[in-house]
């Protein structure tokens, strides 16, 4: 999951220091190193990754992911995400 593509996924913001962002739900349209752009019913919003927790549903499974773990450039995350995953496994 850490190495996946986030564009096109439906994401919900579960925890955030900014209280107006909690409960935001929508599709990810674009991604930069430190932000996600989420397309909601009220237009596109930019949400920072750090210090936020996202909930994603992929192939019937639900994941809760700390935004700090995915704070890489999208093309770098395949490499870095796999490294983090292998480190967690041990």
């Amino acid at each position, binding site marked *: 999951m850490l190495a996946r593509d986030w564009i096109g996924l439906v994401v919900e913001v579960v925890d955030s220091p900014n209280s107006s962002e909690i409960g935001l739900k929508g599709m990810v349209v674009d991604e930069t190193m430190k932000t996600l752009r989420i397309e909601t019913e009220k237009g596109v919003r930019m949400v920072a990754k750090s210090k936020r927790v996202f909930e994603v549903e992929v192939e019937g499974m639900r994941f809760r992911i700390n935004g700090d773990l995915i704070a890489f450039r999208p093309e770098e995350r*395949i490499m870095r995400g796999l490294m983090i995953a*292998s480190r967690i496994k041990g």
Partner: protein
Amino acid sequence: MAVKRDKKLEKKIAESRIDFLLKLAEQRKNSDYELAKRYIELSVRMAEKYRIRLGKRKLGFCKKCLYPYRSDRMRVRIGKGVVRITCMNCGHVRRFKIKQHTKNRRA
């Protein structure tokens, strides 16, 4: 100590992501042209990073400005055995030779 990278798995993931992004760009190019360009930019960067050949997938967008080819934004001319595709965003011209089926070309 640095963790050893699994380059085969990296390539596999990158390949599927590139295909996915190019497909999205193709779907989006009529509604949101800028976003389609952004997807292509990402996939090209990924291909460079993980050394994946794009092959025929290259033909879907302009090599120079990375905007996807759309019928109202491109011009195709065929002549003298050459196909010329002009991008109307940046004016870049690509040329391809049409392969000829001659049996005794090297005879």
